């Protein structure tokens, strides 16, 4: 299956991309995707907990992903 990863703000700088498509085995969890993504970041400093939203809802790492999901990596927020 294929998921879309979105990187905002500081994470876009870290990953050098705003959006990437990733192939994952069926039934992969968000946690598995996070591991893949962390590996791509190389030596860049990332928080111990990477907050992500699946289809625009904050999601725990146990969340099972599905084909076509939109997974956004959300740096600490600073609106207001």
């Amino acid at each position: 299956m294929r998921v879309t990863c979105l990187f905002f703000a500081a994470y876009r700088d870290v990953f050098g991309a705003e959006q990437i498509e990733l192939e994952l085995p069926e039934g992969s969890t968000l946690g598995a995707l996070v591991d893949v993504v962390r590996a791509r970041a190389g030596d860049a400093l990332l928080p111990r907990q990477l907050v992500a939203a699946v289809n625009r809802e904050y999601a725990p790492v146990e969340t099972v992903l599905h084909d076509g999901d939109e997974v956004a990596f959300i740096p600490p927020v600073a609106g207001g």
Partner: protein
Amino acid sequence: MYCAVTREPIDPTDLLHRVRSDADGAVVLFAGVVRDHHEGRSVEALAYEAYEQMAVEKMELICQEVGARFEVGELAVVHRVGDLRIGDISLVIAVAAPHRDAAYRASREIIERIKTEVPIWKRERYSDGGEVWRDGAVPNVPEPGNS
């Protein structure tokens, strides 16, 4: 309820008239404005960025939940994104209510929640040449099974 992310200047008076109904005696408007300093460093300009669709959905959820907890009328939240200068309005929250106590309390709760839940980021450019994504709040992630 009216929640939006916009690249255009925000007019608080427009939002006041948007939320006000004939049953309301009070409207509380909160405006976030761009300051010229942050933790001792002189800020020259800044840019806001949003995960727009999710930001609007989160603002709508916050308005729904806060609206259900207080005796308020209409609510509106508009956040500006893009390049802003010192003194520009970054955010306006408008809450109309029959009585002022509810309007103040709801307004307060909405801004606190926006600052920790809505996917919006701020890049500050300092007069000394530096430029950073401002550190912010880590949103709560629901426990497994609760989402």
